[in-house]
């Protein structure tokens, strides 16, 4: 890089330079607007991609930066998704008071932005509680714990059909128009800009986080948690914080899915979703924020295209891609692209 070759760069200037937006980043975000103009027929798919990308981003925070491998991250996605749906439904509670029962009618709350916030807080709270267990373990026990958590919450959602609709899915979700005017239609005209805006805002948050002292400590934990103790770090509390933030973002992604589709089925919380998001992240590249976004785009578009060709075997090409990437691109597609760019640059100079 030009910055490197300059001999009199102070450390501060060097770190400043790393914060700057690369033109490829700007181009990427501008390109996310293209579906609105170029392929308006695919806005529903585009909004699914944005939601999934946000989910993958949340996993990258814990996996790519703090080294927490999770096979149950759909627990938080699903928790956010169900919360967003349930709060829009009116409820009748009856309190058995002496004399007569008191009936309380709770109106549903369908305002999308506050609904999103409530769902994020709910998922974040669940993440915070779980983090006390999660932060004590590494490696295989950690993977098994997250898997167990995912399976457990799936069955809770399945069993509590009075609340979640169980296997039939949550019925009667009613989301109010965005800003009181924009309806969530069937074509994604509202959904995609909505999902994309939330994705972008939370991406900014994540980008900030990963460049902060906290982000630096997370990478330290990923690299060598034993050494973190020897520099006096409270690794467990760091892990609790990032796990909570990640859970809240995953819950937000789930909530957007519920709000934009006005449905929530067991699919939002099943194991397949946890596995898929992990696959996307590995495909795109772990620990670089954009990896999850690229991975989500590739995965979702591939699923859409391949299932058009053969609806039964669409996981076959996904599996082939995963094997190829793991064998030949250990840092994912983005890592491979970075290596290619570096090679081209060194050859031209």
């Amino acid at each position, binding site marked *: 890089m030009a910055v490197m070759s300059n001999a009199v760069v102070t450390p501060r200037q060097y770190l400043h330079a790393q914060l700057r937006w690369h033109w490829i980043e700007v181009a990427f975000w501008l390109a996310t607007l293209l579906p609105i103009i170029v392929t308006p027929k695919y806005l529903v798919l585009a909004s699914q991609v944005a939601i999934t990308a946000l989910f993958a981003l949340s996993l990258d925070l814990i996996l790519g930066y703090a080294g927490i491998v999770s096979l149950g991250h759909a627990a938080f996605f699903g928790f956010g998704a169900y919360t967003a749906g349930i709060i829009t439904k009116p409820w009748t509670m009856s309190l058995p008071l002496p004399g007569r029962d008191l009936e309380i009618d709770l109106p549903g709350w369908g305002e999308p932005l506050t609904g999103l916030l409530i769902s994020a807080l709910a998922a974040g709270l669940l993440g915070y509680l779980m983090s006390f267990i999660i932060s004590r373990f590494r490696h295989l026990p950690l993977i098994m714990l997250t898997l167990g958590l995912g399976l457990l919450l799936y069955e809770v959602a399945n069993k509590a059909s009075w609340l979640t609709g169980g296997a039939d899915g949550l019925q009667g979700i009613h989301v109010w128009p965005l800003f009181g005017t924009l309806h969530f239609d069937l074509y994604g005209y509202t959904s995609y800009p909505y999902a994309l805006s939330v994705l972008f805002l939370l991406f900014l948050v994540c980008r900030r986080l990963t460049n902060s002292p*906290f982000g630096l*400590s997370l990478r330290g934990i990923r690299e060598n948690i034993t050494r973190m103790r*020897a520099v006096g*770090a409270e690794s467990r509390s760091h892990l609790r914080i990032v796990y909570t933030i990640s859970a809240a973002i995953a819950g937000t992604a789930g909530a957007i899915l519920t709000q934009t589709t006005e449905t929530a089925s067991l699919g939002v919380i099943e194991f397949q979703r946890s596995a898929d998001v992990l696959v996307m992240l590995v495909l795109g590249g772990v620990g670089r924020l954009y990896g999850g976004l690229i991975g989500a785009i590739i995965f979702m578009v591939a699923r859409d295209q391949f299932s058009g060709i053969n609806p039964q075997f669409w996981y076959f090409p996904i599996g082939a891609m995963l094997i190829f990437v793991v064998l030949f691109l250990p840092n994912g597609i983005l890592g491979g692209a970075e290596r290619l760019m570096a090679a081209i640059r060194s050859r031209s100079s």
Partner: protein
Amino acid sequence: MSTPVLATRGLDKRFGSLVVAKDIELALPKGVRYALIGPNGAGKTTLINLITGMLQPDVGQIFLGDEEITRLGPEQRVRRGLVRTFQINSLFPNLTALEAVTLAVCERRGNARVWWRPVVAYGDAVDEAHAILTTLLLAPVCHRRTRELAYGQQRLLEIALALATRPKVLLLDEPAAGVPRDESSELFSAINSLSQDITILFIEHDMNLVFKLASRIIVMVGGRILVEGTPDEISADPRVREVYLGGAHHG
């Protein structure tokens, strides 16, 4: 004389029937350079693990200044100024040298939970990290990833990470292990020029370096302290000669 900076009282540790530490009594005054020597398996690294909290003693107490720290976790001891380096490099392979030391500085200053401001906002922490790297001759490579550094540079980075925590007591576990002899003099001049406020206890096998650096020497054998004294006393002690020349296991 004031209270020692670091003291242990009657430390015992056994793994099953194997006694690795027996009745260890230490009292290190401020600013001294102590060498800890002894044949392989004498329990030197175990003693450092006990002092830093990586292991819990079966019996005995550890004091940092006036405070008993026997039950504190390693990270709590570090924040009180009791810091170690590792015999086998234990670093952050994919962080640059500057990032790694900045991390340690931020942890010490309590900024490490700030996630809404960039690292650069703490410019003085970055400057401090860079100053530490400069004193250890690592400034020219401070933007390289740790795993790309030469082995000797990684040994220096071990010390840089320890210094970033502003130690009162620094425990160096074979700081020159694996470093070629021509590079080790550089390493030891770096250690020698550390502030006299820092009390240093170091394990080392190279006797030239031990006698050059240490103001006092502790000899351990079989989990016990055999003798403690000045370099002259130690080199004249017949028991030490017996251990090193009579025993077959000189490492």
